[in-house]
């Protein structure tokens, strides 16, 4: 099989400093080269960039268009340095060292050039820092301070030059603040393989635009918000509903409930100056109550519910395909919890939508359950309930506004809040989050499992599904197969992953599934094949492999997450993001999982109670189909 983790970027090569292939002498491979940076000597592997070499010895070179996650454009020129013997200054991010060189990173030429570049950027950057959501978290602002910008030498716009595009439920574009670093362009084409954003026009008329300058809501944007997380300024932001949420809280007639997804708790501390990787789950619960939310629920509850519904759907698909020989059944089944991924497949592979599980995402399941089961149980008129979802995600804002997401008879979820927006609410309420006392989630959905928590990381849904499927089908403890029930083969950050799980033995069919399958004999001796991928560029590789009849076409179940790293790297998470930060957030997530008493979705007592009291015709039954499942829209990628 072709290595699906190979780089097959569609980004133009002008936006991708390329790897050095010119080392024709093979004895050079793995060789090092001497470099002197500001008088300090060091050895680096051939091909290391000046920027990397400088960072490795703690020399700071400023950057703007550079981003650890992205291919290298070398366009802002703020990282220029002097290389001895070269007529011009060199962009350190794009300069691979292949022969011994001497570098000066802050000579007078360099300092003058950087200051000019900042002056030029500011001459086009309209915006007042104090009214910008990136105030104190803006790379341009930081550099202006670092380089002692005390006046606008080449002027400063006095009024906005561009209209703000607020058409999208998810992403707002304010090109007045754009400095044309093209990180968003590269994110969209290179990380996500979507390509909604592109530079158009030339010279000082250059502008980042959508196809035919259409509003973002009318193009093939998947709402993932990855561009927001990589924008160095405030040019991109999420569509922020906090005013409406506050209004609902302030309205005594409204019963405002919030569900919190697992990823925000692993990230929100960063908004309060903490190092990445400290989960603030229970402090956040207290903060939410102080903000005035009437109930605080854990989305993990519906994550567990998703595993039951999606898992049952998978079993049914396999049963129909393998036993009933029904050739109309689409396999592999694809996960459906990432709304960015859903919009991606709706646009780019509409013909493959039948593979996608019909189970709603945990967010939407929760909305439907709250406005039906919970409303009835607590005698609250669902029209007075306001459901808020705290998500690491900007696509969730679009998802909750999908017209089909009203199965409760109301809008299942009223508002989607990002981690950043909640942090803003918390600080507006004067709450010192990191030092708050802890408190638990509210009943009746209080008890969650570790399986729900790991939904936040790439591979988490698959791990949760495996924990449950193994136990329900094989009738053995998953711990017998994987130490501490940690399904290591599906963990990690590699873009595309594949794992096999032989089903050596089968157990009795559990009660909850008895009406659907008579026994498991048909699975005995089979090998469950699963795939995991994150970032839609990787999704594309997997989908193309399936179409070509490759290894992934033989999979039974594949997890797709729109964002690199999964939800913990979502477009609603704190800024900045990079591989290191995402790793730390993942560590926090898996740490939480390990602490749960119950770590398997099918053992969640609240979920079992929901089936015994409300969804009495069981998983994938009639009521669950009405409330917890949905269908998709083949959108295609051609825009009228």
């Amino acid at each position: 099989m072709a290595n699906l983790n190979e780089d097959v970027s569609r980004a133009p090569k002008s936006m991708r400093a390329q790897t050095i292939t010119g080392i024709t002498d093979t004895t050079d491979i793995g060789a090092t080269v001497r470099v002197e940076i500001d008088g300090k000597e060091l050895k680096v592997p051939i091909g290391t960039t000046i920027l990397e070499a400088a960072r490795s010895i703690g020399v700071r070179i400023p950057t703007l268009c550079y981003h650890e996650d992205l291919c290298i454009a070398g366009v802002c020129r703020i990282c220029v340095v002097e290389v001895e013997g070269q007529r011009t200054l060199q962009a350190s991010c794009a300069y691979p060292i292949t022969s011994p060189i001497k570098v000066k990173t802050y000579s007078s030429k360099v300092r003058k050039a950087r200051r000019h570049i900042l002056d030029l950027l500011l001459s086009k950057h309209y915006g007042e820092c104090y009214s910008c959501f990136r105030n104190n978290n803006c790379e341009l602002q930081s550099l202006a301070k670092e380089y002692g910008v005390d006046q606008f030498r080449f002027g400063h716009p006095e009024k906005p030059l561009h209209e703000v595009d607020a058409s999208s439920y998810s992403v707002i574009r304010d090109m007045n603040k754009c400095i044309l670093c093209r990180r968003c362009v590269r994110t969209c084409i290179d990380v996500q393989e979507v390509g909604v954003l592109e530079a158009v026009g030339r010279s000082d008329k250059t502008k980042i635009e959508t196809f035919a300058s259409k509003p973002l809501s009318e193009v093939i944007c998947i709402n993932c918000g990855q561009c927001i997380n990589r924008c160095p300024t405030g040019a991109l932001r999420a569509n922020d509903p906090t005013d409406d949420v506050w209004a609902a809280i302030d309205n005594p007639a409204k019963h405002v409930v919030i569900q919190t997804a697992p990823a925000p708790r692993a990230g929100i501390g960063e908004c309060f100056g903490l190092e990445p990787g400290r989960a603030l789950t229970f402090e956040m619960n207290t903060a939410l109550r102080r903000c005035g939310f009437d109930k605080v629920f854990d989305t993990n509850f519906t994550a567990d519910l998703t595993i039951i519904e999606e898992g049952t759907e998978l079993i049914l698909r396999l049963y129909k395909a393998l036993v009933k020989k029904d050739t109309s059944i689409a396999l592999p089944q694809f996960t459906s919890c990432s709304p960015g991924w859903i919009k991606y497949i709706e646009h780019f592979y509409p013909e493959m939508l039948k593979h996608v599980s019909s189970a709603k995402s945990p967010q939407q399941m929760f909305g439907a359950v709250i406005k039906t089961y919970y409303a009835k149980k607590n005698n609250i008129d669902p029209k007075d309930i306001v459901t808020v979802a705290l998500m690491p995600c900007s696509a969730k804002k679009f998802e909750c506004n999908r017209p089909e997401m009203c199965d409760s008879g109301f809008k299942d979820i009223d508002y989607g809040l990002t981690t950043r927006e909640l942090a803003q609410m918390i600080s507006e309420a004067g709450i010192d989050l990191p030092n708050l006392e802890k408190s638990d989630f509210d009943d009746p959905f209080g008890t969650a499992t570790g399986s729900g928590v790991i939904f936040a990381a790439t591979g988490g849904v698959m791990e949760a599904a495996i924990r449950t499927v193994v136990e329900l089908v094989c009738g053995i403890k998953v711990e017998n197969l994987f130490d501490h029930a940690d399904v290591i083969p599906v963990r990690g950050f590699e873009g595309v992953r594949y794992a096999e799980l032989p089903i050596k033995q089968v157990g009795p069919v559990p009660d909850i599934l008895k009406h659907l399958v008579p026994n498991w004999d048909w699975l005995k001796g089979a090998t469950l094949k699963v795939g995991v991928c994150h970032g839609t560029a990787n999704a594309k590789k997997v989908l193309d492999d399936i179409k070509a009849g490759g290894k992934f076409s033989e999979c039974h179940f594949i997890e797709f997450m729109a964002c690199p790293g999964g939800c913990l790297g979502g477009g609603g998470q704190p800024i900045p993001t990079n591989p290191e930060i995402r790793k730390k957030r993942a560590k926090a997530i898996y740490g939480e999982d390990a602490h749960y008493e119950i770590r398997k979705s099918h053992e969640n007592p609240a979920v079992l109670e929901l089936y015994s009291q409300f969804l009495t015709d069981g998983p994938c039954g009639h009521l669950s189909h009405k409330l917890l499942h949905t269908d998709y829209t083949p959108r295609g990628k051609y825009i009228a």
Partner: protein
Amino acid sequence: MITSKCSKLTFSEIKTGSGLQAALKNKPAEVISILADSGMKGRGGAGFPTSTKWRFAAAAKGEEKFVVCNADEGEPGTFKDRVLLCDFADLVFEGMTIGAYAIGAKTGIIYLRGEYTYLVNQLESVLAKRRQANLLGNKICGKEGFDFDIQIRMGSGAYVCGEETALIESLEGQRGEPRNRPPFPVDTGFMGRPTIVNNVETLAWVTAILAKGAAWFKSVGTEKSTGLKLFSVSGDCAEPGVYEFPMGITIAQLLKEVKGEGAKAVQVGGASGHCVAAKDFKRALAFEDVATGGSIIIFGPNRDMLHVAKNFMEFFVEESCGQCTPCREGNHKILEGIEKLEAGTCSMAYLDELCKLGETMQLASKCGLGQSSANAFLSIVANFKDEILGRTEKVAV
């Protein structure tokens, strides 16, 4: 525009096929050595030794290699490549074929300026004839394993597409934007493969050198700038046109030839070149002195130099690709400054600041366009400061 001088070009003495046949008598590496011996440097402007470029490409590993002829001729004031393509296309294609032999390429591409579309039929028929004569195609001149053909691709209408990496980007179907270097096209060029990009004139001279020998070529010119060179001469002179002169000719000599004596200034190298004032007309047109891709624009005594500067800056404000900060915003700021100078509202301090900005653009821009777009402005400010500031005083009082 094409003057009678053209018929006297050395190229008219070179017989079709003679350069290629001479080349094929040698091993590829020997062809490169002959070029090295001739001292041939690129005629596209940058003056990079042609043999070095070819040697790198020959040594680079690649399943496939490409020869690209840069016929984008976008520099204001140059039209010599057009003359070559009209009258001596055979020699240009032959130069490409020799290049293919030297580096081991099977495919050649000529990237033709959009405005030269009217030449396509004529060029295609030259290519067809060459195929018939077995000067292109399989087993060229009977040489086993030497297969090569040339296709014509139309340029995309931007000046920056003449920059070799933007040209390649454009050939690949992308926006014409220059790439980061290193790696260079000789290593990672068209479709990521080793590629030589050479100017039309360079390729024609290659053919001439192979036909007539390296010694013949370097018998004229200077030590560092050997051989002959075509010049596109325009502006305030009695006989504008395309001229062939030995490298190292002084500006004064050139002005005499074209009947442009009495000029106030000469713009050497087009919009991205330098403006040389009369006091420096003894300087030589050579890589080691005033380098040029061949564009010579003559300004008579009545020309308004601020207007000249403005004209050039307007060109760059139009043509910057917009990728990198210094060029994208810098050209525009300089143009605004010129407008202030015209209105007499530019302070000395601000003019100073703009000149420093120009230096930053030269140093920090990503490609040759931004690295040279301030040249004309800076040299005009340096040489004609009084004229420019004259109006500041007049209007500012």
